[in-house]
C-alpha cells in the first residue's frame, strides 16, 4: 500500500515537473514564426515577445497559434504587419494580451475577407496612446470592424464593387481595389467618428453631410485613391437613410 502511494506521489511529481515544460513556448519558436511574416521591426517584436514570456499569465501558446493563423491567412503584408504591431504595443504598454487575442482573430478574419484593417489597427493604437483600458480598445476594434462590414455590404448593395487593380475600372461602379478600399475605409471611419463624437444614427442628414464633407476634401487633391468621380458615384447612390441603417447596426 505504502509503495503504491509512493508511486502515485512520484507520478504526480513527475507530471508537475514536466507539464510546465510542455506548455512553455521558447522565444526561438516565435523567432521562427516571425521569419515567415512581413514584420517591419523584428528586433522590437522579439523583444516585446520576450518580455511577454517573462510575465505571469502570458498566453504564450495562444500567441503562437495566432501567429501561425496569421501566416496561413492570405492578406496584404502591411495589414499583417499592423496586426503584429498591435500585439507588440499591447505587450509594451502592459495590457493583458489574453483579451486582445479574440480581437486579433477578428482582425485576421476580416483581412481574410478582403477588408482593409489598417484603419482599425490605427484606431486601437490611438487608444493605447491615450492610455484607454483594454476593454475600451477592444470594443472600438469590434465596432470599427462591424462598420467596415456594414459599409462594404452597403457598397455592394449599391452596385459599387472592387475589381483587381490591373483590370482598372471596367464599368460604372466597378472600382480598382485601392479606390474601393479607400472609399470603404473613409466612409466607415466617418460614421465611427460621428458615433464616438456623440452623434445619433437618427441624425442621418448630419451624418450624410459629414461623409460628403470628408470624401469631398479627400478628393480635392489630398488622396490619390479618391477621385471626384468616385465621390460623386457614392453620393449619388447613397442616401442618409442608408448610412443610418449601417450606423444603427454598428451600435446595436
Amino acid at each position, binding site marked *: 500500500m505504502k509503495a503504491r502511494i509512493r508511486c502515485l506521489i512520484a507520478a504526480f511529481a513527475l507530471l508537475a515537473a514536466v507539464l510546465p515544460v510542455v506548455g512553455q513556448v521558447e522565444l526561438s519558436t516565435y523567432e521562427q514564426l516571425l521569419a515567415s511574416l512581413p514584420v517591419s521591426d523584428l528586433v522590437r517584436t522579439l523583444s516585446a515577445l520576450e518580455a511577454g514570456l517573462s510575465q505571469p499569465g502570458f498566453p504564450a501558446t495562444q500567441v503562437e497559434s495566432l501567429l501561425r493563423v496569421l501566416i496561413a491567412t492570405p492578406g496584404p503584408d502591411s495589414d499583417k504587419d499592423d496586426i503584429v*504591431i498591435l500585439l507588440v*504595443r499591447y505587450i509594451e504598454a502592459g495590457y493583458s494580451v489574453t483579451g486582445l487575442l479574440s480581437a486579433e482573430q477578428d482582425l485576421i478574419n476580416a483581412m481574410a475577407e478582403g477588408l482593409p484593417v489598417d484603419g482599425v489597427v*490605427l*484606431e486601437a*493604437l*490611438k*487608444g*493605447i*496612446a*491615450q492610455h*484607454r483600458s483594454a476593454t*475600451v480598445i477592444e470594443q*472600438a476594434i469590434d465596432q470599427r470592424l462591424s462598420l467596415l462590414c456594414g459599409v462594404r455590404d452597403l457598397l455592394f448593395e449599391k452596385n459599387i464593387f472592387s475589381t483587381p487593380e490591373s483590370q482598372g475600372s471596367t464599368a460604372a461602379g466597378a472600382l480598382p481595389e485601392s479606390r474601393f478600399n479607400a472609399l470603404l475605409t*473613409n466612409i466607415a471611419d466617418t460614421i465611427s*467618428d460621428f458615433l*464616438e*463624437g*456623440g452623434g445619433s444614427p437618427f441624425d442621418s442628414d448630419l451624418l450624410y453631410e459629414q461623409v460628403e464633407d*470628408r470624401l469631398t*476634401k*479627400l*478628393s*480635392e*487633391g*489630398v*488622396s*490619390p485613391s479618391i*477621385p*471626384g468621380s468616385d465621390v460623386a458615384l457614392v453620393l449619388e447612390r447613397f442616401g442618409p437613410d442608408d448610412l443610418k441603417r449601417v450606423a444603427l447596426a454598428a451600435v446595436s
Partner: protein
Amino acid sequence: MMTNHDLDDVLRDVLRHEVAQELPRLSALEERVVEELGERVPHRGFVGHLRQMLAPTRGGRISQLAIVGATAAAFLVLGFFLSDRSLPLVDPSISSSGLATTSNQDVLFVVPAPDADSVAVVGDFSNWEAVPLTDDNEDGIWTASIPLTPGRYEYAFLIDGLWRGQDLLADEHVENYGQFTSVRYVSGGDGA
C-alpha cells in the same frame, strides 16, 4: 465782518494763484505720463506675451473666453508668419488631373508651450508613437517638421505627457475615446 461775496473773491484769488503756480508742471503732462508708462512696461518679447496670454487668471467665463480668444489670435498670427515655412495646408499646387501626387512634403507641427519640459506629436503617420518637438531657441514655441505624403492625418500633441488634441492649426477635430484629435489634410504637390 466778511460777507459771502468777499469770501468768494478771496477764494477766487487764492485758486488763481495756485493754478498759476502749477501751470508749468501741468504743461506736457500727457506726453510725460505716456513716456513714463512706456519706460515702466517690461519688454517681454513674443514669449512673454504668450506667457501672459496663457497664464491662468481669476474670473469667470468671460476671462476664460478672453484667454481662448487671445490664444486663437496668437495662433492666427503665428500661422501667418509661419505660412511661408512650408505649412502644407495652404499649398495650392495640385496636379492638373485633380488627383494628388504622392511626393513627400515637410509638414510643420508647431505648438506654444512656454513652461513645458517635453513636447511630442503623436499621429497615425507614426503609428501613434511620439515624435519629439524641439525648442532650440527656447522661445517657448516647439516645432517638428515631418515628411508626409498627401492624405488625411490625425494627430495630437503630448505636452509633458498630457494629450492636447485641439491644435488651432488643424483643419478639423474628431472625438475618439472621449478626447479630441486634430486632423490635417495634406494636399499633393506638383509632383516635381
